[in-house]
């Protein structure tokens, strides 16, 4: 499609050449662009994440964070550019085919099956990975996420924080290789946020799962992530450690305001 296509056909090699790190990229985009009418939501983005990384994606409202997620999951089709996952070009794959390859996602607005019980919600996710009797696996997951007491409640009766937890639990029940979390702690209490941070840190340390987290709350980012990517006006503005980002005057100007 573009002249650069040949250079990045194998993003794994390209990435390790750049960084000198052996760990291959599980995810890479190449010249990814998405236009809605006259508006360019994502502009020529080369974004890559290594396997096992926990990466935060921050940026002001309208920076294109959620749009980038939807391009990764296939809910949006890019105007141009490519998405590579685990060494494979997945640009033309349907969303469910990408989930089959080990992706999973939590939506920005809490999105569970509201009129079903918490247990049915979990079963709907669990039957993707479990043959036969679902109940032992579902019970295990309900306990793990402290949802066992509300298992028979209708999901719409859960508190906002619990709904978020349920959605994260469903996404993790698929046992994904890469989990995309769009504002996982939005609207949660401080205690709930801390619990989620603790859980993410544990999973990050104990498994080789990859996490990409969109988050507004810089304190939450501080709790979970080392590497941060700043998106602004549909382009990658900065990439670096949380300290570098915090101390970057330009980032403070566009995003952190007077903090």
């Amino acid at each position, binding site marked *: 499609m573009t002249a650069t296509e040949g250079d990045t056909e194998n993003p794994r090699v390209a990435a390790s050449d750049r960084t000198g790190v052996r760990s291959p990229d599980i995810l890479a985009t190449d010249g990814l662009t998405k236009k809605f009418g006259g508006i360019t939501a994502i502009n020529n983005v080369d974004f890559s994440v290594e396997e096992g990384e926990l990466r935060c994606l921050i940026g002001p409202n309208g920076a294109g964070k959620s749009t980038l997620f939807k391009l990764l999951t296939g809910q949006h089709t890019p105007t141009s550019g490519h998405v590579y996952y685990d060494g494979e070009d997945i640009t033309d794959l349907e*969303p469910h085919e990408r*989930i089959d390859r080990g992706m999973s996602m939590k939506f920005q607005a809490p*999105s569970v*099956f509201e009129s*079903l019980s918490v247990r*049915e919600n979990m079963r709907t996710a669990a039957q*993707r990975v479990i043959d036969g009797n679902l109940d032992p696996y579902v019970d295990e997951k309900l306990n793990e996420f402290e949802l066992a007491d509300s298992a028979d409640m209708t999901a719409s009766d859960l508190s906002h924080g619990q709904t978020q937890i349920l959605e994260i639990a469903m996404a993790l029940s698929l046992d994904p290789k890469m989990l995309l979390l769009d504002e996982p702690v939005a609207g949660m209490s401080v205690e709930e946020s801390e619990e989620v941070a603790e859980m993410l840190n544990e999973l990050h340390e104990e498994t080789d799962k990859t996490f990409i987290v969109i988050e507004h709350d810089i304190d939450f980012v501080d709790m979970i992530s080392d590497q941060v990517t700043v998106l602004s006006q549909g382009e990658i503005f900065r990439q670096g450690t949380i300290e570098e980002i915090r101390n970057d005057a330009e980032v403070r100007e566009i995003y952190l305001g007077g903090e």
Partner: protein
Amino acid sequence: MTEAVEKLRSAFSALNGPNTYGNGRAFWTAFAVGLVAVFAYPMFVGSYSAGQATLYLLYGFLGLSLCFIWGYCGVLSFGQVAFFGVAGYAFGVVTLNFGAEATVPAALAGVVIATVVAAALGYFMFYGGVRDVYVAIVTLAFTLVMYTFMAQTAGREWAIGDARLGGFNGMPGIPNITLGGTSFSGATFYYLVAVLLLVTYLGLRVLVNSRYGRVMVAVREDEDRAEMLGYNVKLVKFVVFTFGGTLAGFSGVLYASWGNFIDPSVFALSFAALPIVWVSVGGRESLIGAVAATFGVQRLDQELAATGSEWALVIIGALLLFVIMFMPKGAVPYLDRYAKAGLGWLREKRGAGSDREVKAVDSD
């Protein structure tokens, strides 16, 4: 022996689950009583009245088809009668060419053609990105096109073999379904339809409470969430819609055989709206509600028409409005809630002593 009991028990448990109303002892007792009433009915009213009631039973498949795709998968089709009509016409064309001996292959042909038509329409809709209310518009448009087309087939040139399509005059002389020398009409046809409906109902209960039923409900509840759990939403809707066409086609075949006649009125707007009325009144998410409301509404409609009331349509319309305003989920979910509350209250009232009894029965 115990193995057989165990098998029976697991077969029975497949009928029950979170996706059907009525899973308890009370429901199945009432169901058995209702079933006895349905099968005893012709003995009390005679063959002619049973023949009338057969119509309401055979419409049950049409009601179930919409309940299945709309209530369980969230796909609102305004055109189930199109598949019903196509199957009825196909049954007529085959039997008028090959005679009463061919009714079984003809029935099969009718159902297969309805399924293929539903699959074609479903493919273009779901893989073409038609969603939500636009599905209702496209399916209704398809039905009305069929109406216009069939209405202009009065000329001699509109014939398939010996079968003339007949335009508004319709297609008379369609034979009864004949199986092993028995021509089904009156009470015998009633029993045939009742048995088929029972089997279909129980089969659908197993299906909606299965893993696939869970996927259908996930698609109904939230397509994006279902997709992000890895479900192929388009394929699920396509498959469910196609199977809905099969059920509606089955209804159409029975209809053509019941009246020995079919005409373009099966594609008319007034008929196309009826399944929506039945399913809304009974409760979208209830299979038993769809069957019961189909029977009840059509019975009422017939009663009103027979007494010479010109208010039949107005009264049916008022019934629909009443249900939508006061029981938006339909009659069965409403009854279910009150029945459960009533049972709970009874248990409480009988006190702790008999509570043990109830528990003993439950764990039986």
